[in-house]
């Protein structure tokens, strides 16, 4: 990232003094302040979560804590039923995400490399799914789940979650698959490999970066999904993190420090995952949204 030399040289020849380096510094300062403001809700949340309620009430939300405590987290964890909601969200993630990525990859392979008939019609129909709001489907989905005896069950969420994940996953994966050189697949075919073998031993391994990205984005979406979980799950034993958090918010509306701790408990896994995996998230969003 040191393309700094060229412009500097250009500027030196004109009458403007070497302003660029200074500009970089002031921009950095301004941007740091803006970024601090941007992240301040989360910072305040952390500060509030680690102080006693009495201290918060006495000194206000913007003060520095006079004492620190982790009691809020223990209280929030127990009252918010987070052990259960964490487990449920995790089970859903494990059941849904690998399956969704796999069937999406299969469809994407058929679209990108197998010259399926009506390929464009299929793509059009599937990509149209990107634009469909979830709420148009909740009444029939609820009716279907009820007649199958799958309301208040994590299993009942898997079908709708898969269906709403497929459009984006197929969009990203098929554009990646298209870039795989046909010669490699052709060579394998001449060696007698069938479509399945080519898919499993060549296409998927070569597409590992795209698969990882799609996997992460789908995991984030699954972890965060709210509306289907809201209408299909009603007992505390089956709630996921977003629905559990909403309940918790109602119960803790007068306990600001406990509420802050509860919100943090709900978002910390996703923040940690994001910090470590952001390279993949950024790459995937960019690839999925711009042309393949």
């Amino acid at each position, binding site marked *: 990232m040191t393309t*700094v030399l*060229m412009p500097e040289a*250009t500027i030196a020849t004109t009458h403007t003094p070497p302003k660029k380096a200074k500009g*970089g510094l002031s921009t*950095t300062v301004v*941007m740091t302040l803006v*970024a601090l403001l*941007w*992240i301040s*809700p989360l910072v*305040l949340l952390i500060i509030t979560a680690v102080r006693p309620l009495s201290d918060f*009430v006495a000194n*206000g939300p*913007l003060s520095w804590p006079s004492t620190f405590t982790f009691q809020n987290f223990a209280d929030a964890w127990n009252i918010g039923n987070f052990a259960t909601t964490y487990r449920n969200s995790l089970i859903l993630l494990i059941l849904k995400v690998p399956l969704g990525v796999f*069937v999406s990859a*299969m*469809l994407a392979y*058929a679209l990108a490399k*197998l*010259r*399926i*008939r009506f390929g*464009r*019609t*299929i793509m*059009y129909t*599937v*990509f*149209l*799914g*990107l*634009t*469909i*709001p979830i*709420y*148009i*489907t*909740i*009444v*029939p989905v609820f*009716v279907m789940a009820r007649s199958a005896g799958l309301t208040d069950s994590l299993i009942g969420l898997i*079908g*709708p979650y898969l*269906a709403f994940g497929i459009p984006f996953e197929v969009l990203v994966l098929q554009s990646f698959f298209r870039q795989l050189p046909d010669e490699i697949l052709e060579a394998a075919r001449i060696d007698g490999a069938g*479509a399945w073998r080519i898919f499993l031993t060549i296409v998927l391994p070569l597409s590992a970066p795209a698969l990882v990205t799609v996997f992460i984005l789908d995991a984030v979406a699954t972890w*965060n999904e*709210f*509306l289907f979980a809201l209408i299909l799950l009603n007992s505390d034993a089956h709630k996921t*993190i*977003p629905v559990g*958090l909403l309940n918790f*918010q109602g119960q803790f509306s007068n306990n600001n420090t406990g509420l802050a701790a509860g*919100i943090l408990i709900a*978002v910390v896994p996703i923040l940690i995952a994001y910090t470590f995996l952001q390279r993949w998230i*950024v790459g995937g*969003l960019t690839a999925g*949204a*711009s*042309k*393949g």
Partner: protein
Amino acid sequence: MAVLTAPRKATRKKTRHGGLVAWGFALPALLVYAGFLVYPALSSLWFSFTDWDGLSAGYNVVGLDNYTALPSDPVVRQAALNNLIWAVVTVVAPVVLGLVLAVILNGKVRGKPVLRLIFYTPAVLPLVSVASIWGWLYNPEYGAINAALRAVGLDGLAQPWLGQDSTALGATMVAAIWLRVGFPMLLYLAALQGISADLYEAATVDGATRWQQFWHITMPGLKPAHYVVIALSVIDSFKVFDLIYAMTYGGPGTATQVMGTWMYFNVFQYNQAGYGTAIAVVITVVAIAVSIPYVRSQTKEHA
């Protein structure tokens, strides 16, 4: 509806791998997609022509009655207006702010990866938690926003942000902007890296100002990115539900109702499943109509 040119093109080349094998790969995802997205969406269309309450076994077909009742429902009018405001504000503000951030971050700034990380962070949080965080910031008594206003002597501006009609919708949109700036920023950053530095150098030599360079080099260079960013932001804006539901529950009164939440309340609180689905159908049709050019462009590019 469907693209009619596809079959014609198929004649160009017959490959051994088409046919049944291809369908074998395509079917699992297509069946799930058809069963849990296409079928329910069409099924909702059917329900919208009935007077079903959502609970009883039977219902009557009432034709377009639900649709003709929509315009005289004051909450529907409010919700439609709110959806429109929401679409304009939560598309324009994040796209403009995202572009500004991207241009700045693309220039000479230290700590770019950290800054980028920070600005995108809100986007990965569950919307319910974003609603909780902002609901807490907006708290009239103990919220940080009113505390900050009082701290700088603007006590008069401290108010129940989510509790009064005049500010509630604006307050929810601020939270939406907060979480949606990151996405355009990322896409613009990626697109900016595709614009050749030579263009800027040449312009600098020719004496073009920074401002001129922005309008004559940066903006035209970002044209494809503008298209994608705006299309995806618009699509997203029509889906608004979680944030409103968790932050204001459509209130106070019906001040922050949008079509999605008003649909939900009709179905699950007032037992008017037929009427509720009609609301959902209307907003979905608008969403699809607006998004079709984008969907078509994605299909074309890849075919």
